[in-house]
């Protein structure tokens, strides 16, 4: 028995064949703090991770911060209009410089200034100025002011993080030499998203919720709809679940949901008569609704092994929502709350240690892909 009594029996690697009994990621990969430590390096420092939306920082000096694992980043638009990312770490003695919640709402700053000793950087990361105390040696009797060499602005600038984008969606990669380009990791998702006018839509809402489960637990829940019939009563009315399709690609999978009746063509950003929910490894989703002219994104942001934050953003033609759009967002929130309840309950079960290794059904091939990717990352 591989699946029960984890203390007694060994669990197995996620089998490549979905019909094998050992096809799920063993439970300890969801609950063990050491696994989360490993994921910070092997997952979140190696693959492309979503940072945020360009539209939220339209002008030079606009910025937001992101925390990815232990790393904190400032994503800012520079004077040339380019979006760049820097470690939120001062080149002087390493202080954090700006607020470091997992994702701050956009702010604006002319320069990046460290509050500790006021080293100040340009938006391209170059060191712009230091206080006089760094240019003169007045407190040091062994030195003359003329002995002070001065600091090279480029050498002493902020450490930049590699970025790339798909349309207005900005991604980060912390690896010195990323194993994949963003285009390679995104594959067909890139082509698909780039064919849509994503940049024409405006950020309208953000909800950041703290949820008590491992990030992959929620990721798995997002990736299947076998639970929908029993748990999303309101949502499934109007959706033809049996005519839905699950598409699996290398690093992303898509759940296509057909609507019972055609919704009006104007009511969506894309042409197809369906909702499309894209999960992009490791922790990002793009939600194309079939019944609203807009789209959403989720960042499934781990806090530690047993908590994550869901950052849910909604984009519509206008940032001021119509009554119908308000109602749409409310329904979407309802769906999230229902899912939070499911994943928190599942996680309590997982944490009990009774289940060493779960088992995926034949139609949970999206999850299987997810679990295989996790395993691939851990072993790499």
């Amino acid at each position, binding site marked *: 028995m591989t699946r029960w009594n984890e203390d007694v029996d060994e669990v197995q690697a996620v089998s490549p064949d979905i019909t094998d009994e050992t096809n799920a990621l063993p439970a300890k990969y969801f609950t063990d703090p050491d696994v989360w430590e490993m994921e910070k390096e092997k997952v979140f420092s190696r693959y492309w991770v979503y940072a945020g939306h360009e539209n939220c920082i339209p002008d030079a000096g606009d910025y937001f911060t992101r925390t990815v694992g232990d790393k904190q980043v400032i994503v800012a638009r520079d004077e040339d209009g380019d979006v760049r990312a820097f470690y939120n770490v001062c080149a002087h003695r390493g202080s954090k410089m700006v607020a470091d919640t997992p994702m701050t709402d956009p702010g604006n700053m002319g320069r990046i200034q460290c509050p500790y000793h006021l080293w100040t950087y340009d938006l391209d990361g170059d060191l712009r100025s230091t206080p006089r105390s760094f240019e003169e040696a007045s407190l040091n009797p062994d030195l003359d002011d003329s002995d002070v060499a001065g600091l090279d602005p480029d050498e002493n600038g902020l450490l930049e993080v590699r970025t790339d984008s798909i349309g207005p969606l900005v991604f980060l990669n912390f690896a010195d030499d990323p194993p994949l380009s963003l285009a390679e990791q995104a594959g067909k998702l890139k082509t698909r998203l780039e064919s849509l006018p994503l940049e024409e839509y405006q950020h309208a809402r953000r909800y950041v919720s*703290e949820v008590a489960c491992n990030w992959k637990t929620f990721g798995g829940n997002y990736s299947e709809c076998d639970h929908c019939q029993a748990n999303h009563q309101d949502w499934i009315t109007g959706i033809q679940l049996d005519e839905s399709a699950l598409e699996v690609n290398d690093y992303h999978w898509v759940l296509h949901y057909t609507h019972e009746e055609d919704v009006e063509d104007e009511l969506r950003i894309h042409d197809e008569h369906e909702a499309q929910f894209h999960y992009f490894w490791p922790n990002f989703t793009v939600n194309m609704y079939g019944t609203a002219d807009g789209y959403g994104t989720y960042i499934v942001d781990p806090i530690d092994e047993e908590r994550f934050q869901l950052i849910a953003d909604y984009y519509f033609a206008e940032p001021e929502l119509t009554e119908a759009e308000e109602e749409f*967002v409310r*329904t979407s*929130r309802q769906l999230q*709350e229902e899912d939070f*309840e499911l994943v928190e309950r599942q996680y309590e079960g997982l944490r009990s240690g009774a289940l060493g290794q779960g088992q995926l059904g034949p139609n949970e091939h999206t999850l299987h892909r997810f679990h295989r990717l996790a395993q691939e990352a851990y072993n790499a």
Partner: protein
Amino acid sequence: MTADDVPFVACCPDCTERTTATDPNEVVAFYRRHHAVTGHDVSWERTPPLAADVPADPDVDAVVAALGDPDVALGAVSAAASEWGWTVGETLDAVHDRRLTGALWEPRDDHVALV
């Protein structure tokens, strides 16, 4: 600190176990532990004066709207709802129902806000 300095007091009417707290969410934690072990509910005995008006008729959303800027501790919602004679368990159930209809959400642990 004397007992008079403790603004929040709640107790279990079934077994008269009492708790005092400076943070209303401690009462929520007390309720959860006590309820898990005994199945009993917990009622409020004393709460400090509220910073906002609570409507006369029971309405959780209105309390969250009145107290929640940007969000409000679950315990504070419950303390306010005690004006309607609600127990801690009754408030938590009502909040749960409102969350599951998408009217309320939880931006941080044990704090709720209006959607």
